[in-house]
């Protein structure tokens, strides 16, 4: 079938501002949106800029905004984004991050926030056994957060990052922190608590659930944020301290 893509173009090297360009592509409804973008790049306009790699939703390269919703182009089938009224499929870059070219955004800030929460295993105790023992239930406790592929879809969809407080740490970094905090083998809670417990840290989240809605890995992000907030409150309370949610 023939479809029309309406893609936002912007090359800061030469364009004053962003504009939309339409492309007609012949495609199978069961193909991926990424396949359609590839057709545009290969046969219509090779200057179109976007990132891609795995082509099946596991590397996090190609998050973009499709008909207003964050999605991975490679995990989106054409038939699922065709507009009933026949209007073109509208494709824009992720919000909240600066555009580098067309659908490519600068993820530096996103990764800085990620690095801020010490997203690595902390346990200084010498290992007694060959592996650290962990029960199946304990393993299950932090499973959800381990699925994150750092695609930044949630960071783009978050109404807090979009406007209310652009300095907010963002959903993905909190998911990363939670993954370790809830890992029974990890001992970095205190270090990480102070990296989350500040006014632009975990507290700006107002439970809009937009992140949870768009996450291509189906992570219950908002729930994990709330769980972590509770952990920090408990920790502060047990020490007779207050949380640092106000500037």
């Amino acid at each position: 079938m023939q479809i029309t893509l309406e893609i936002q173009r912007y090359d800061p090297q030469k364009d004053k501002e962003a504009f939309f360009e339409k492309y007609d592509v012949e495609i199978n409804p069961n193909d991926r949106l990424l396949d359609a973008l590839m057709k545009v790049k290969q046969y219509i306009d090779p200057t179109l800029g976007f990132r891609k790699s795995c082509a099946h939703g596991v590397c996090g390269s190609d998050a973009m905004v499709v008909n207003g919703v964050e999605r991975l182009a490679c995990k989106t089938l054409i038939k699922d984004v065709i507009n009933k009224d026949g209007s073109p499929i509208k494709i824009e870059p992720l919000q909240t991050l600066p555009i580098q070219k067309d659908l490519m955004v600068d993820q530096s800030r996103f990764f800085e926030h990620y690095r801020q929460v010490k997203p690595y295993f902390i346990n200084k105790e010498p290992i007694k056994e060959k592996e650290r023992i962990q029960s199946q239930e304990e393993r299950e406790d932090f499973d959800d957060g381990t699925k994150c592929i750092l695609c930044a879809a949630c960071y783009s969809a978050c109404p807090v990052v979009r406007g209310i407080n652009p300095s907010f740490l963002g959903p993905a970094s909190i998911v990363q922190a939670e993954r370790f905090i809830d890992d029974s083998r990890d001992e970095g809670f205190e270090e990480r608590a102070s990296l989350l417990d500040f006014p632009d840290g975990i507290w700006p989240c107002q439970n809009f659930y937009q992140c949870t809605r768009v996450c291509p890995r189906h992570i219950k992000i908002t729930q994990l944020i709330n769980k972590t907030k509770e952990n920090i409150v408990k920790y502060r309370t047990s020490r007779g301290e207050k949380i640092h949610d106000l500037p």
Partner: protein
Amino acid sequence: MIHTFDAVIVGAGGAGLYAALEASQTTKTAVISKLYPIRSHTGAAQGGISASLGNIEEDKPEWHAFDTVKGGDYLTDQDAALILAEEAVQAVYDLENRGLPFNRTPEGRIDQRRFGGHTRNFGESAVRRACYAADRTGHMILQTLYQQCIKNNVTFFDEFHVIDVLLKEQRCFGVVALELRTGEIHVFHSKAVLFATGGTGRMFRITSNAYANTGDGPALLLNKGVPLEDMEFYQFHPTGIKGMGILITEGVRGEGGILRNRDGERFMERYTPTLLDLAPRDIVARSIVQEIREGRGIRGDATIEDFVHLDATHLGKDTIEAKLPDIADFCRTYLGIDPAENPIPVQPTAHYAMGGIPTDIYGRVLKNGEGHLYEGLYAAGECACVSVHGANRLGTNSLVDLIVFGRRAGQNIAQFVQGSDRIPLKKDSTRYAQERISAKTGGQSGPNPEDIRTELQNLLMEKVGIYRNEQDMLETVERIRELRQDYSQVKIAHNTSAFNTHLLDILELGNLLDLAYIFAFSALNRKESRGAHSREDYPKRNDDEWLKHTLSWLEEDNIKIGYKSVDISRWKPKPRKY
């Protein structure tokens, strides 16, 4: 711009990151990667990483090594296989100790499952050896290693494409890279360089490999006079999603999934009565093709579009959601089915290069079949050939390879740079890189490179795939020669510097063409059937003449072939039955 380091690591998948963790402890190390590290294709690995921990049932490194040798149809170097199997055990514990979330046994130990070709007591029956984190083992390995690199402040150059290696006679002293963000050319001047650039699956139309898997490292070295080893051995994984190639892990069969033909028959019973669906991949892939050719594919029309069913419906929803959640997700997303209710339509997909840059057991690159080495030049991971995979890799052994040999290379680099100097840079060290770029830019002309790419991918898929014959391969080699000529005419229009992904696509295509040429030529040259290399005109393994590794050199438009002996010091080659 010129950067000075002791060690430069090209590639940030499992092999590159592990080497970086080792080398950076004592030496000034840079990791250069064309993708953000966490986007590397190691993250796509699903099923598991094998190690004879014996957490569930008795197991030994020796058994693991033997399976690896037999799985590789005796082209595996046996001492190297034993190193792989022995060091796998510590490698897995090490990953766990660094935080990797493996699935657990009821006792809280690392859980293990069955995988193709992994057996107890030299082939008696399938053994539970594959350690796994659901069906996201590679994702967890990549995440864990990247996290550790952050913890240890490893220096990264993300989205830098290496397009030249500085090599003078036998001494390597750096690489030249193109920065995506600016289009600038950077020189990395170093004492040692490790290539860990991953797979080459994009030579084929249907593949489990990422767009980025274009074999840049091997192709670059090939053009600098370095030989490649055993390039004719390319693995087709039996179970890719029909038409798309997206991988359905062998873990599905490891958990009990069954391959069925159009009559619902478990056809592997006829081919490998002992291991059934868990025979090595080359054998299962051939069996599928055989079923299809004899009209027992699901369509029954014996065309290359035909497929078979992978039936996991009897495993139950709970097992599938707990142990194979991503597979369930892929089935829902791309096929609109639930694997707990419907069988999965599968066909073989181009998956893994057994061949690559020849190295010794420390990752040092070999110059020839006599064991002479380059200095300061290393390779590890899928782009390298140790050779621990021989003519056919066993499932889960690549992830082991990354960790074991990535680590060994990293350690050897750390030692090497202590006692060595950086040989001085010449003024024109960027000349070759500049020439590569200017040859492809400055006004659009020549054929559409995408037509070349499409033709190449179809050609290899159809003519040098699972079954091969003289006529098809002769034609293929000839046609690739022509395609390389066409490619030499390709120039693209825009030469704007920043974010020029088009230019990078074109350079990658050049790499694919060179590798495809070597691949098809080596396949044509080997007149026997062994492991993944099955020739209709030479259907038997021929140890008298062909128990040897192929080395191939690219000399302008010609290919020179040489050989290297195989280490068979432990187990005498025997007929391969399962």
